[in-house]
């Protein structure tokens, strides 16, 4: 019997200590039947990429409330590319100014979830994006 579950890495890069949102999202994804690897605070992009590789995740969720997203997110993408993990979907949650949202999406982020996003919407979005990936694989 084989079983395929969506594996998600939830990480908080950068120096802010507000992990409430990350935990709420982790819990919501768990309740949707996903296996969520939670790595905790103050992760460097290198640590995140390394964890994503070892854990062979389908999705990475980055929670950023420090304003450093335009520095951190491209770095994560570079490292994923170096590790040949371009197929991993990346989403971002936290405080992201509107003008940056479209920039992040252009970079390849699959979704940006700000305050007030319903966790149900996040779950549906991730399920759909991962499914579209397995079709192309």
């Amino acid at each position, binding site marked *: *019997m*084989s*079983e*395929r*579950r969506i*594996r998600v890495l939830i990480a908080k890069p950068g120096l802010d200590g507000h992990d409430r949102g990350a935990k709420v999202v*982790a*819990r919501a*994804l*768990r*309740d*949707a*039947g*996903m*296996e*969520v*690897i*939670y*790595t*905790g605070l103050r*992760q*460097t992009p*290198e*640590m995140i990429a*390394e*964890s994503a*590789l*070892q*854990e*062979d995740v389908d999705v990475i969720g980055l929670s950023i409330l420090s304003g450093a997203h335009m520095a951190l997110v491209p770095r994560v993408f570079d490292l994923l590319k170096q*590790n*040949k*993990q371009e197929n991993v979907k990346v989403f971002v949650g936290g405080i992201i100014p509107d003008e940056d949202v479209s920039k992040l999406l252009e970079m390849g982020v699959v979704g940006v979830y700000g305050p007030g996003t319903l966790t149900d919407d996040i779950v549906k979005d991730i399920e759909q994006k991962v499914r579209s990936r397995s079709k192309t694989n």
Partner: protein
Amino acid sequence: MSLTASVLEGNRLALARLLTQVENNTPEGREALSELFPYTGKAHLIGVTGAPGTGKSSLVNQLARFFRQQEEDTQSTDLTRRVGIVAVDPSSPFTGGAILGDRVRMRDLAGDSGVFIRSMASRGSLGGLAHTTGGIVQALDAAGFEVILIETVGAGQAEVDIARLAHTTLVVEAPGLGDDIQAIKAGILEIADILVINKADRPGVESTERALRSMLQLAYPVSHIFLNHEKLHHGLNPEFTNQSGETIITDKMIWNPPIVKTIATEGNGVRDLASLISQHYEFLQKTGEWERRELARLQSELNSLLQETLVDRWKSSIAPEEYELVLQSLFRHDISPWQAVEVLLSGMKK
């Protein structure tokens, strides 16, 4: 290049993908494990179990760090060993989802390419490990990790699967979790090769130690009556030391589970714990216990695979409607459960 060839070459992405196949028990994963099997059997498998919150992950973090540090003592010829870590956390019985949070305590190991950490969810298995943990460990073993630390889910009293998988089992306790009646119950304490009292800076550590020590005296009475207590703290019994105090290990030796106190968050006691682990390794090697445990482990793996395969074959040999008919006659009390089994299995012999 095939997945297994890349794994044997040390490709970490290939290893990660293989582990996913193994964890999901896919045909590819099973085939790869068969190809890798000749390369397994070299690693020292160390199990770490104990109640939730006793500090298992923090201890694993410290132990891995210790194994990875070049011995400062230059006389030691020991090369640093590569460390694999498999950390199991529970799956929700309702949704099947899981939060795997052991990496939170293992951030010191980030950036070390000699360490590979894999988290896994228990996926309904009740013995403290997942069904496929053994396969994950085999893959890491074949990939050349010399030490593999296996952390169970927070275990209560009866989650003892780890003792069958690991060569050396650490049971982690913390002060204040139970009195001496807990210490004499059957189950998890019995499987300990080394007992660790973590959080040893907390109040109540003396009474925890006393309870565990008296439990051990009941379990290993002879050695405790006749042998010197002081040396028992070091695991090996003193009858087997020569005049200069060096240990001579013989096949007649008994291993008395030693107790070690640690404060994992600060790294206190970790050196002592690591030295007990290598003593236990030496003990296993020299007494023939290593082979005995390997055989027992392979036997239990073989048996569970046999069961699994037989059940699968049986399922494919019988039509669901036939099963339903038998179930209905059982429900009407026309036949007994044993007779139902006979009827259902009769199709298989053909």
